[in-house]
């Protein structure tokens, strides 16, 4: 679904109008857990297909909650949320798995299944999508090699270091070539070299058309990704609205 839309900064797109395809649309989104106070308030933004976004903000600002909305682990308590052009705020529960399969998620706590090997953890999205074992074997081996864990394929998460677990989690998130990749502090447990490699993986995927949203405190990561856009949250609300979409994907010449 292509539609004409504007950035939150309202007509400041360097004097040009663009037709962009939004992959994520938040309209007046609010989120509260139970009867507590709202942890996210009045979020209005759109993320364009093929964009690379950093989500920043202090601890407790609502980054993880926002990511949960993005990977459909949570429904907004108010407002309109659309992903891939489909309104999902009140979508039937049974329709959500199909959308989740188009999203790759790197959780802050990795969320690896402890009793499965690294290979099985990475293969899980493919198997859930119905891939045969023949279709699983090659891509999983390749992906494990890419994150430097070819020789650890049969190791279980408890026997892996924090950094290795994180790489398995990233491999699992991207194995299905997701249209939207959501990562919560993906470089928090890896050394600088590995962080650079992972960022390269993300930008490569982004170059192939995947929209990437990374929540991070790592200023180095942000500065190493020229052209990426930034969403800043504070106290559950977006601030620095002009920051978002300052560099739409087309301007980076990547798509």
């Amino acid at each position, binding site marked *: 679904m292509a539609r004409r839309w504007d950035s939150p900064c309202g007509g400041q797109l360097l004097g040009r109008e663009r037709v962009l395809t939004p992959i994520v649309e938040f309209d007046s989104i609010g989120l509260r857990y139970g009867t507590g106070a709202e942890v996210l308030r009045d979020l209005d933004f759109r993320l364009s297909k093929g964009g690379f976004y950093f989500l920043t903000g202090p601890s407790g600002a609502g980054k993880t909650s926002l990511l949960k909305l993005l990977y459909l682990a949570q429904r907004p308590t108010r407002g309109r949320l659309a992903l891939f052009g489909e309104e999902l705020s009140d979508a039937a529960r049974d329709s959500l*798995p199909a959308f*989740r399969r188009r999203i790759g998620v790197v*959780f802050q706590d990795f*969320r690896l299944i402890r009793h499965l090997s690294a290979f*099985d953890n990475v293969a899980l999205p493919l198997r*859930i999508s119905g891939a045969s*074992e023949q279709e699983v074997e090659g891509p999983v081996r390749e992906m494990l090699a890419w994150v430097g864990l070819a020789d650890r394929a049969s190791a279980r998460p408890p026997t892996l270091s924090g950094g290795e677990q994180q790489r398995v989690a990233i491999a699992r998130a991207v194995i299905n070539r997701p249209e939207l990749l959501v990562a919560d502090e993906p470089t928090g447990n890896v050394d600088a070299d590995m962080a650079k490699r992972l960022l390269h993986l993300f930008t490569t995927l982004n170059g192939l058309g995947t929209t990437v949203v990374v929540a991070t405190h790592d200023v180095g990561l942000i500065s190493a990704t020229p052209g990426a856009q930034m969403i800043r949250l504070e106290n559950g609300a977006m601030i620095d609205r002009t920051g978002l979409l300052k560099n739409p994907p087309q301007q980076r010449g990547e798509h």
Partner: protein
Amino acid sequence: MFDWLFASPAERRLLGTRPLSGPTPWVIAIMTFSIMIVAAAGLALADTASRVATGVQARYSVQIPDGNARLPATLQAIRATPGVSNAEAVPEADMRQVLERWLGPAGAAADLPVPALINFDARPGADVQAIEGRLQAAAPGAKVIAHRDSLGPLLNSLRALQWVAGALVLLLGGACAAAVVLAARGALDTHRFTIEVMHGIGATDVQVTNLFQRKIAIDALIGSLLGGIAAALVLLGLAAGASFAGELLGGATLGVTDLVILGLIPLALTGLATWVARRAVLSTLRTAI
């Protein structure tokens, strides 16, 4: 329909548990054992009641109040009556033996008047009132007693016990289903993390349910077979050793149909457990986002 039954090795690894690793198989084994014993007792009672009812349905006794003097003439009259078969006089010695049980040695006293008794069977469709009329002519004051009336309370008790056995089977089946629901919820709780990850990656409720349904089906099959084998051994022991069950193997008390019903109980319980597990897992998963 039976996709859930077939899982790849990778799918089997997802729950990371082996069969017989939890209490479910053992609970189902105990339930199966209890249900089979109760069901066997109920079926044996049903068979006994049926045989007693059939045996006494057409059986009558004629009581001649003034003793043996009129017995031969009365017996002859009964035998000549249309619709009567197998008319036999009860020997006086047998009558006195019965009386002795109630009266002690006085029952054998020669001066104790003993009523004469004739047993006969009425053919199907026979007019018992007409028979009784002819008897009155041959032996005034003779009384015809239908065995089904005198054994009625016993038959009613047997039938009541059958219903009790049936109700117990249903109750135990319900308890088995409840145990499976608890086991399914426990398993969901144990594997909550795995389920959350699977859901997050795009697994459907049906995919998750299939894993649990298959695990519980295997546990239930193993448990019900163990319970079934134990119950069969106990029934064989009873049949071989106890007098009341002495006819079990001969088929007098448990027929082929009864044995087939008993043999199907483990399979029925496995099916019940599998169905209940699927419903329980699906309904629990639907409470998640």
